[in-house]
């Protein structure tokens, strides 16, 4: 029960780097975790013979048997609740929720038990659980298949919340999540399942709770995570043409939050835009904007702006592109960062930057 991320680093058996999809990287992470720790058990709907509707568990039941990789009845509260009991017995369950909206039936188990069990028992019953949830839209899914539900989870003390934006992180963060002694809500950006990247399974796992600066720039900071990372990188590229050098911070870990990396960037640039695809109102972007403002107020040339999904139920496929933050909407927000004020405020706040 005291395994840490470090224990699970792979001993290089001949270093290997491969170009894989994010789905494949996740598959590899599950494979390696199952192989290394016999307390790891996978549970979910259609994760066995079918390999999951996104094929993330492809081949794992064949390799590890249906006790390690178990198809369950369709009952999300039952899945998560039995995982709680399994964790109490010392196992490390990895649960798959088939789509974000289908995790809602498990909400009571998540909030009232998974998140609280360690605390209420003063450490006697830790919950080394990983809850994999494919999240977000952009894949042409019909209603209830594209929710971005992270705001519910980040507000629940006791949970870690993680969302990879790159192939390497998909592997590394999932390994770290399974190795964590705390419950981790692991949000897999559906839109990026088929995106490709380099994977080196022998690389050091990302330190839990750390953000990554994906691109440096001095004009303003884009703060983002998960499915919005590629969009922000694209926007940063496009911004060059307008004369802006945008820094892109990829949170990776939503909880715990890496105040240090985020604030260091914003203090450097003096401007920030938060980007995520979930609805904006009381979305996670509100927390980011509020805490960055609290901590960096005197460095800010403009309010921290948010580019998010609208405050509407996720739209049908024909309209989802209007809802999701795109490059132009991000650039528009960057344009509204009160560039005209720079000279005046530079004079005003002088040495503070």
């Amino acid at each position, binding site marked *: 029960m005291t395994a840490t991320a470090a224990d699970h680093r792979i001993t290089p058996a001949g270093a290997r780097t491969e170009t894989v999809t994010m789905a494949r990287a996740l598959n590899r992470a599950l494979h390696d975790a199952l192989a290394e720790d016999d307390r790891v058990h996978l549970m979910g*709907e*259609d994760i*066995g*013979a*079918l*390999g999951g*509707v996104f094929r993330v568990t492809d081949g794992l039941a064949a390799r590890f048997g249906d006790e390690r990789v178990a*198809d*369950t*009845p*369709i*009952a*999300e*509260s*039952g899945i998560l609740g039995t995982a709680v009991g399994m964790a109490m017995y010392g196992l490390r369950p990895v649960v798959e929720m088939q789509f974000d*909206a*289908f995790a*809602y*039936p498990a909400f009571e188990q998540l909030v009232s038990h998974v998140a609280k069990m360690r605390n209420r028992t003063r450490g006697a019953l830790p919950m080394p659980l990983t809850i994999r949830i494919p999240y977000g839209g*952009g*894949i*042409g*899914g*019909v*209603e*209830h*298949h594209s929710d971005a539900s992270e705001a519910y989870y980040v507000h629940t003390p006791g949970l870690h919340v993680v969302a990879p934006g790159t192939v390497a992180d998909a592997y590394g963060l999932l390994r770290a999540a399974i190795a964590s002694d705390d419950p981790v809500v692991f949000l897999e950006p559906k*839109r990026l399942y*088929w995106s490709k990247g380099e994977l080196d399974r022998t690389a050091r796992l990302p330190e839990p709770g750390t953000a990554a600066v994906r691109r440096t720039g001095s004009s303003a900071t884009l703060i983002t995570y998960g499915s919005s990372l590629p*969009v922000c990188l694209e926007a940063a590229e496009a911004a060059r043409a307008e004369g802006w050098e945008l820094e892109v911070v990829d949170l990776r870990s939503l909880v715990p939050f890496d105040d240090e990396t985020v604030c260091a960037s914003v203090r450097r640039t003096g401007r920030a835009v938060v980007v995520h695809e979930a609805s904006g*109102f009381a979305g996670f972007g509100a927390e980011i904007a509020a805490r960055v403002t609290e901590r960096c107020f005197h460095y800010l040339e403009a309010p921290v702006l948010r580019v998010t999904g*609208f*405050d*509407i*139920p996720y*739209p*049908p*496929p*024909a*309209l*989802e*592109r*209007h*809802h*999701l*933050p*795109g*490059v*132009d*909407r991000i650039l*528009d927000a960057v344009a509204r960062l009160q560039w005209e004020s720079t000279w005046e405020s530079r004079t005003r706040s002088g040495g503070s930057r």
Partner: protein
Amino acid sequence: MDIEEPVTMNQEGLSLPVGDPVTLIDGAAGTETIDAGVLVELYRRLVLGRRFNQQATALTKQGRLAVYPSTTGQEACQVGAVLALADEDWLFPTYRDTLAVLTRGVDPAEVLTLLRGDWHHGWDPHAHRVAPLATPLATQTVHAAGLARAAQLRGDSLAVLAMIGDGATSEGDFHEALNFAAVGRSPVVFFVQNNGYAISVPIDKQTAAPTLAHKAIGYGMPGVRVDGNDVAAVYETVRAAADRARAGGGPTLVEALTYRVDAHTNADDATRYRDAEEVEAWLRRDPVVRMENHLRVRGLLDEAMVEEFREGAERMAGELRARLSTDPDPDSSAGAGADALSLFDHVYARPTSQLLEQRALLARELAAGKRAAKEAIA
């Protein structure tokens, strides 16, 4: 003291109040109590339904539907259960029950609005007394119990048909729905299509119950099994249960034994989890063919009628193809979704000031010709 073994799925000679599956069409008689016109209509609808499944599948391959969960093989369930309803009754379909909705008289294009990706829902629920297709499994069964309760409270006599798959019976909501309906003696017919699979998961990983109909006992309601590939048996069973419900007798649980011949949806690969032989065996029990044979044996169907029905189905399919070959029309009831600014219209009775701001933002973007999130989404 010893605990007695429970009744198991394979145990013979159950002494439980759940009998063998009702079958009517395999002899020449068996359907004689049903009006001949109804029998022929059941058949005509099966033919339409089979064609609808084929057409929807074809449209999906052409990219005209986002996704299609086919009911091929399950047409007898979809048609028989719905034709058994009276006008005043309500239907609560789950995501697969497009054919049930069609059979209820909803325009084929409106049936497919959700699956077309155009808007979340297509038809007027009150005009047809048909709730939206429910995607979150089992949730609609509770709505059905609630609507039935409301009708009771208002003194209205009607029955509510709540459709659900075998896998979805594992959800807590199924339990709560049956319990609410039973405690309230509400007029609901819970109709489980046991097609053997929940996507890839076979029924024996879903439940250890002797049959799904046995679940009725724990709620104090009758449980009945029916041959789900026998449209007359489905019709007759649901009719009896609905009559009972309307008369104040309370809810019934019906389990229809059938098979999902196609993959779960067009996106699924069924060869990963089941054998061709299994499918073959069920194809021999094809509900359309069985009913056709039965009607021919009973002398209720001739070549001309078969041809007429086939042509009618072709016509429906052709029209559907034509209507779905173009992009959604924002002004038609089946296509209003494509208007981007309508995204804000129905979140609340009146848009909040926040939504009006967001609507204005999008309007400005559209007017300025800004690119939306991705011209081509993955």
